[in-house]
């Protein structure tokens, strides 16, 4: 197997992992937007009710949309860029919340557990940050990848 083929397969796996994860977590949140709304409120992201409602209402479906694009191989690089732009601040918010919980409960950092609103229930923060790091890496890889193995339309533009 040559390097080009390996790179193409790596891009395919990255697309499916990232797309599958986004599709799953998006669906979990989309079917129970109220629960996600409550969790988003705890993060104190926005102060206005309309802003909070917009995030809670739109973000889950946006994740579903991006997941489907990645799985089907449509506008892959642009979708990966959008996902990357989303993942970085979300991960920062999880880190900020974890530090606040650690400070309040006087726990070791990796002992902190809470529902981060990620669609996976209560998680250990170190595990969650490692997962997000992996997803950010996959998204960054896809932004630069030009391989379009099993893609419906790799480039939309």
């Amino acid at each position: 197997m040559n390097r080009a083929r390996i790179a193409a397969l790596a891009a395919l796996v990255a697309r499916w992992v990232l797309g599958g994860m986004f599709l799953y977590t998006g669906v979990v949140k989309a079917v129970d937007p109220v629960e996600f709304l409550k969790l988003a409120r705890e993060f104190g992201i926005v102060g206005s009710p309309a802003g909070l409602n917009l995030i809670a209402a739109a973000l889950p479906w946006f994740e579903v949309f991006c997941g489907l694009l990645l799985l089907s191989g449509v506008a892959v690089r642009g979708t990966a860029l959008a996902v990357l732009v989303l993942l970085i601040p979300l991960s920062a918010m999880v880190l900020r919340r974890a530090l606040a919980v650690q400070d309040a409960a006087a726990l070791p950092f990796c002992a902190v557990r809470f529902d981060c609103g990620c669609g996976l229930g209560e998680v250990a923060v170190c595990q969650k940050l490692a997962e997000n790091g992996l997803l950010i890496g996959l998204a960054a890889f896809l932004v630069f990848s030009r391989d379009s193995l099993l893609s419906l339309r790799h480039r939309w533009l």
Partner: protein
Amino acid sequence: MPAIDRATASPGAVVLEGVGVAVAGLALALLANELSPRGLVLSRDYFPSARDPASTNTAAGSSRPTDAGTARGAEADRLAAEPQAEGLHVLDTEAVLVMFNDPRREQGLFVFVDARDDRHYQEGHIPGAFQLDRFYPDRYLPEALPACLAAEKIVVYCNGGDCEDSKFVARLLRDATVQADRLFVFVGGIEDWQARGELVERGSRNSGDLQRATP
């Protein structure tokens, strides 16, 4: 379609594609929310601030969790403080049990209202309790409100602990013209109820599917 397409794209094109995905994704997301039966109303304030407590009935005359006989002490005081600060009456589990066993409950004069969502309500609620999920009030108010307006006392509960939904539902009922001095928040919630091994009803209201909770 070639197995490997190494066609190039300028960085600008990738960014433009990303913007396009974001715009299209947001539009479709808002549409999906609008079409979803579980969708949120973007203009609604789901966590309204309390009205001026001075304009509402104070906690005078309400049962306070620090009454003799309660075992929860400081924790109960903490949980009761917030609704009391808003002028809502609170009840501890002992007082709720007295009301539950009072014959006036079966006459509809004492009404219980469960502030939780469908899944949690169906899994087990206080027997005969009306459901009122404040996030979808249009579905539940038509049945619950008339019963509350006719009742002498209305006990609202949710999970217990830090659950706020009972407080918000009590305020919702108050804003819907239920007299404030008839509204009580059961701060211990269904968790306390079940911890005492009391009867819970599964499924819909008055389903008859009763079982004793396992403490």
